[in-house]
């Protein structure tokens, strides 16, 4: 028989890590189901656009003299991150409150709502590392990578995914219904951003009136950083600006999420 041992309060970071450990237990059983959308989809883009469509694109000033496949790869890391981020920030979050009620279960333990929210971000970061990392490995295997500096692109990509996911987590934690609110988000935010935020062609080729819309997306800033990192064209001031924008979204998004988790779990 096991000994008697009551629970204890651990440090905030450790508390969040215990929640991540719970996610990990789930992930070990179910990772295959998540791989299709978070890794499979970007690889399809890489093959269809990079290899297929790219075979029709001649290296030019736009691609920095590189093949279209190589031009695309760092940008697709950032795009893959926003896809995974969006996936992890929407239905899994709502489900934690509403369907499997995972968050409500955890909030009966010493772990606080803020720690539950933080755990969600640690988990999303972990998922971004996995999906972007696997994507990069595949890209490297088919010769789509030009420089080891692409590892810095990977870091920027993960930051992009977090910057996009952070406000969305706060939004998902506020959704009351069955998650129908996510449909317009996917249709009118995620998909247009994927297509027009500079991944496949420069934003400068968009009509001038539309460009500002691309500029406010985290994906554009992330794409600029990821490309510049791999291709060695990183310049300090633009880089600081892009980074500051992504970090600001992360900080504000996490703050809002903590607040929404507190409201929803302790009322």
């Amino acid at each position, binding site marked *: 028989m096991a000994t008697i041992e009551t629970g204890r309060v651990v440090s905030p970071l450790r508390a969040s890590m215990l929640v991540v450990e719970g996610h990990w237990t*789930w992930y070990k059983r179910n990772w295959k189901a998540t791989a299709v959308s978070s890794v499979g989809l970007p690889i399809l883009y890489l093959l269809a656009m990079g290899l297929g469509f790219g075979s029709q694109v001649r290296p030019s000033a736009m691609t920095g003299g590189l093949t279209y496949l190589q031009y695309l790869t760092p940008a697709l890391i950032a795009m893959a991150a926003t896809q995974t981020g969006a996936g992890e920030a929407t239905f899994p979050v709502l489900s934690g409150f509403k369907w499997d009620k995972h968050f409500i279960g955890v909030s*009966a333990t010493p772990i606080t709502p803020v720690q539950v929210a933080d755990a969600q971000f640690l988990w999303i970061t972990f998922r971004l590392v996995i999906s972007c990392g696997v994507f990069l490995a595949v890209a490297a295997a088919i010769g789509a990578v030009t420089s080891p500096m692409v590892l810095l692109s990977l870091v920027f990509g993960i930051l992009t995914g977090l910057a996009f996911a952070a406000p969305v987590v706060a939004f998902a934690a506020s959704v009351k219904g069955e998650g129908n609110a996510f449909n317009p988000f996917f249709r009118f935010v995620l998909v247009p951003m994927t297509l027009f935020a500079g991944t496949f062609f420069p934003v400068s080729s968009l009509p001038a009136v539309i460009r500002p819309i691309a500029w406010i997306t985290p994906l554009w800033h992330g794409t600029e950083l990821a490309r510049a990192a791999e291709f060695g064209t990183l310049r300090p001031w633009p880089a600081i600006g892009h980074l500051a924008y992504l970090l600001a979204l992360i900080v504000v998004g996490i703050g809002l999420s903590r607040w929404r988790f507190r409201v929803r779990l302790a009322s």
Partner: protein
Amino acid sequence: MSNNDALVSASHLAKKFGDFTAVGGIDVDVRRGEAFGFLGPNGAGKSSTMRMIACVSPRTGGDLRVLGMDPDRQGPRIRARIGVVPQGDILDGELTVRQNLEVYGRYFGLPRAHVRAKATELLEFAQLTEKADAEVEALSGGMKRRLTIARSLVNDPELLLLDEPTTGLDPQARHLLWERLFRLKQRGATLIITTHYMDEAEQLCDRLVVMDHGLIVAEGAPNELIRNYSTREVLELRFPPAEHDGQQNTAEHPPTDQLKDLADRIEILPDRVLLYTEDGEAALNAAHDRDIRPVSSLVRRSSLEDVFLRLTGRSLVD
């Protein structure tokens, strides 16, 4: 009001949601080792009270101490030492039965090896050992409930909160569950139970409060409450549905004054009349002597249901 031996001590405890008052200021003391019940219909404020005691819902008025601490300031420390069985099962459906126990135990900051041993012990207790590696989604309702209770024990809680522990279970599953809760009680656990089943309250609770509209309307041991608020026996008389008014199924009661003096008190329900008396058989014979012919009659002991009816004028389960 509060005494040092109380695991839970509330005074004028209140919970408001906007303009709505869920709990309107209640005084409660739960002592170590007792099984304490909140009995009342849906919406009486039982669950809101439980959530405040569980330190997941801050109070909006009054004072509350759980294990001697203030939930507002020491919620995590209190939660570390209590167990909660929520109204609906909150389980990780895509994990195995064993994983549910182990993962949950880790949330309490317990070491892995300890959690593993504890899970084995709790599987045994919940009679789920054979299901240890089954996915939770596939379990029956009764098994899920037992797993939820097992999970709430993973931190060896000093106080266990059970919110409607057997609602929605079939009789067999309920009895199995009651038997397990009895065992916990015998081991000296302190239980707080909410229920709208009077049989559950009578079976499990040493002491209980009856709640209605967010307030406590009576307090005591089950038999004490029955003694104070009801008679020893109840005669139930059923009458045929009224023929003269075609709109409703109300029974055609004989004139109340014909029955009134047969009992200490009578209650007229839509489908039957309850006569509260020390001797039900005698009252039934007396009714027959007066040529009162019910469709059916039943003499039974008074229950908490009768206490509730007396106190609130309504029955528990609508």
